[in-house]
């Protein structure tokens, strides 16, 4: 597959003060199955990529080793926050339907080896973002925490973070706790996610900025204006700094930023309106989609 190198020169100058971070290469990933691609989700090891359309309609897989694309599902909202299973053998995604105008979401699974699809959770109101667990997933919906696996398991239930009615809840050791990390009334939280080591929560307080707190809600890092943030590793996150004029997005850059504030590096090319990044520190990759639906891969070296 011919990879389009956008610029290697970008590496020049992208040297952090505390750590030496270089964009080794940056290229557009040629996508043939769909004309445009959005919302990339990298597997933890960075060997596979999930993506969707802008309306989250359909879910597609790109395998970096075979360079093959696969349509996993075409159902509605299947591209919204899909997750890989712990062993990268399955993908869990949602399937939206409506009844009397009310929205219901089922959780589906797709076996990447056999291509078999299975319904993990029947349509529910308020299905939250799932987390991989054993060979299945845990997910909050309809005021309860669902555990769904293939076969029984006694595996311990990991910490689970959920955004419920735009508030942050932590499920840990059988307890459900609401976090209020930011002082003030009527604060909404979005993009909450657990760090790879399960010790920290990354979130955006709407209108306030993006932060990291511990599992008790104590803020340990203020990252400023950073949208759609995701973890790069336990110490760094990637997000987008998008600007709009109230009608349309006018610019956006993808930024890598460390919790201690010593690293703040633009990863995206200035030629792009770069949005919705995903990252794999194991593979040293950051992906983002451009405003017009191109997927751009940045390969990093961090010393």
């Amino acid at each position, binding site marked *: 597959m011919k990879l389009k190198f956008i610029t290697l020169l970008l590496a020049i100058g992208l040297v952090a003060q505390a750590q030496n971070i270089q964009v080794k290469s940056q290229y557009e990933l040629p996508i043939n199955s769909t004309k445009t691609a959005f919302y990339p989700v990298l597997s933890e090891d960075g060997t596979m990529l999930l993506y969707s*359309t802008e*309306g989250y309609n359909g879910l597609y897989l790109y395998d970096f080793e075979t360079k093959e694309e696969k349509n996993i599902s075409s159902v509605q909202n299947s591209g919204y926050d899909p997750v890989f299973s712990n062993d990268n053998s399955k993908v869990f995604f949602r399937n939206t339907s409506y009844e*009397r*105008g009310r929205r219901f979401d089922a959780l589906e699974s797709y076996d990447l080896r056999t291509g078999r699809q299975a319904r993990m959770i029947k349509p529910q109101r308020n299905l939250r973002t799932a987390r991989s667990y054993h060979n299945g997933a845990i997910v909050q919906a309809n005021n309860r925490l669902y555990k769904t696996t293939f076969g029984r398991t006694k595996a311990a239930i990991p910490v689970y973070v959920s955004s419920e009615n735009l508030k942050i809840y932590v499920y840990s050791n059988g307890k459900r706790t609401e976090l209020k990390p930011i002082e003030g*009334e009527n604060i909404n939280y979005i993009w909450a996610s657990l760090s790879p080591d399960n010790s920290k929560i990354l979130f*955006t307080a709407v*209108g306030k900025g993006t932060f990291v707190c511990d599992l008790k809600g104590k803020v340990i890092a203020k990252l400023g204006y950073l949208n759609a943030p995701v973890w790069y590793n336990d110490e760094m996150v990637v997000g987008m700094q*998008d600007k709009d004029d109230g009608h349309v997005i006018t610019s956006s850059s993808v930024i890598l930023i460390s919790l201690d504030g010593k690293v703040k590096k633009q990863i995206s090319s200035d030629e792009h309106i770069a949005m919705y990044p995903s990252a794999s520190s194991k593979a040293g990759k950051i992906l983002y989609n451009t405003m017009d639906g191109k997927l751009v891969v940045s390969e990093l070296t961090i010393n």
Partner: protein
Amino acid sequence: MKKILLPILLLVFSLNLIAQDLSGVRIYINPGHGGYDANDRNVVIPPFKSGDPNGFWESSSNLHKGLYLKEMLDSHGASTAISRVTNTTEDDLPLSQIVRSGNEFNADLLLSIHSNAGGLANHILMLYAGRDLNDTKIYPTQPSPEVERKSRAISEVIAKNLYMNKLTPWAHPYTLRGDKTAASQWFGWPNGYGVLRGVTVPTVLSEGSMHDYIPETYRLMNMDYKYLEAWNFFKSIADYFKSETIPHGIIAGSVRDKFIENPAPYKKISNSHDLFKPINGATVKLIEKDLTYTTDTLNNGIYVFKNLEPGEYTLEVSAKGYHSRTFKMTVEANTISYDDTRINLIRNTPPEVVEYSPHALTSDTVMLASSTIKFKFNWDVDAESAKQAFSISPAVEGKFEFKESNFVMEFIPNEPLDISTVYTVVLDKTLKHFDGLSMEEDFTFQFKTTDRNRLRLLASYPLDNETNVDYKKPTFTFVFDKELMTAELIDGVQVYDMDGNMLKKNRRSLLHNKVPAPMGSTSFMLGEDLVPGKQYYVSIAKGIKDIDGVFLTDTLLFSFTASDERITDKTVVETYETSDKLSYDEAQSVNVTKASVTRSSAKKLFGSYSNNLKYTFSSSEGGSVVYKIVDSVFEATNDSTVGLHIYGDMSGNEMYLLFESETDTKEVLLDSIHYGGWKFAEADLSVLLPKTTYRLTGYKLVQRSAPLSESGSIFIDNLLLYGEPITSVISHKLEDVTIYPNPAKDIIRVSKGPHQIVEEMQLYALNGKLIRSSEYDYLLVDDIPVGTYLLKIRFNEGVYSTPVIVRH
């Protein structure tokens, strides 16, 4: 931080829990904008100054509606989230956060609340995530078909309910647009609105009304008016999610004067209640509920009674200086009952004339013959009785206009009054006002008209049917018999092509009243070149006034054809690049005060210079000025033709070529200089004696009786000598065509050459719309509105176009 309205809203709804079942329905509310900043919309209305947070801000208005809606939904079991509850810059959220919030909330509907800017085009615009129904274009990014379908369905329900609002006049019905299609067509955005991109939930952006339509701006300052919009959102959501109907109803109205117009200078939608004066501080009592509502001080007259059980109610409206009014209204469940509540001023004295014009001090005082006759009264008068009470002698036909809410009556004669005539005007005492009282006695006055009653055009360039208007940014000049008021001239004089497209004027070239007093003039250069061979016309609008207020009584139209006046394929015998080729010959001139020849680079057609011939005669007639050629080597015979490029001065004076042979002298007419631009003029020399060689010895300008003949300044360039005259071989195929009458009242006819056959006549409005066509050589216009039109006639040998005026 701005005040939070929730405490107020809680009070409104705390006692109003009803059986409405919206349990579990999830609505994410996004009151658009935020922060009283540059990304907000501040419409400045008195008494608020620009930037005053207490004035109208879209962010504030959207927030109030959003908070009301949230409270209504919460009170009826729905699950809601709202993107902001205050109004700070921090609340002006990034689009990506709004979209994500709606998605993460798992909303059944994301409603983004806005109002729009569009002034008099006050209407509802619903933008839903997706495409127009008939748009089959595939956009780079699209919502899922299900989200698109549901977004469209909800937007239609909301639009229908909002459109039921009768407190605002709608300029036209609501509009539903898919944001992808609309943004692409309106702004060229490839992917729609940011708040509708990437949504996983049905999403609607509501532009509820035009916040810069000033009467609406004032309404949007009223909390209860915003409550009504929120209630309509609430009802729409209840409708869409098929909940039970709302068991209560609402009474809403606006109190306005029955007759008196709203005197505020802002524009109002025609034929709407907004034209009438809103009553501030009016008291509206709902008798059965013992409730009283006092209208606010912000010029909207709005009153609202909420949460009423179905049934009949009595309302009593009163305001200082007005007759009280009591009326019944019926309240239905799930409905807002609207009333356009008009009250009538107490008029307790008889009507009388407080001002009038023309106000002659004595019957000998002369007044303009173009006057309108105007009365101002102490009360607003009944129009029909005022018309019946009016008479003028000698009789004059005209029309009445009532202004300032019938406090002013004008009689506008159809034609200017006769000159030097004494008129007697009477308003007899039958004239009455709206409370029925009549004048106590007749009102009579007289005036005498001047000896001039209309503005007259004395000279123009181009003249009608001028065929030699040089195409290169020509300058047009129009001279009238009186110095002009300049205010209306910029728009009042325009040049069009025959498709009705207005040509740009070079605004810096505008010159007014540059002719000797008492005459007046206007001239301008076009800002663009014309196309040689193409037909155009100039329109001078009826109503242009002179400094006395005397006006042009009819629109004047001059059609002309552009041409390239530069003749380059003939022998040039003099270029006039120097100033030593001609000199003023005082001895041969008559009645000349002064004259000169100079070289000029300001106006030239070839090379770097032309020669400028200036002259001033000492009287209005009988003058002639001679410019002799120095060392003439120019020789011609009677089979020669002489051509000269002349930039005319519109004087109407005639230019002659002076020839001498050894035995003879001749003066040959070259041209009558009526024009004000470059023209190529040529003279056939057949009047010279045969077989005789002549020398051109000079030019002679002979004064003719014309308004601008006393002084002038012409330019000449490239003098040519050749054989066959050029103009004799130019063919004007349709030169025999004339249209009559023009202006036309009932019918337009065509006069044409014997071999010309009319295939079709088409009458177009100036916007290009075809009004009427005919296959005959006439076209009926008796039922066509008065105005200026373009007539195109297709003949067997070509197309003829001309502007025509319809006047009944």
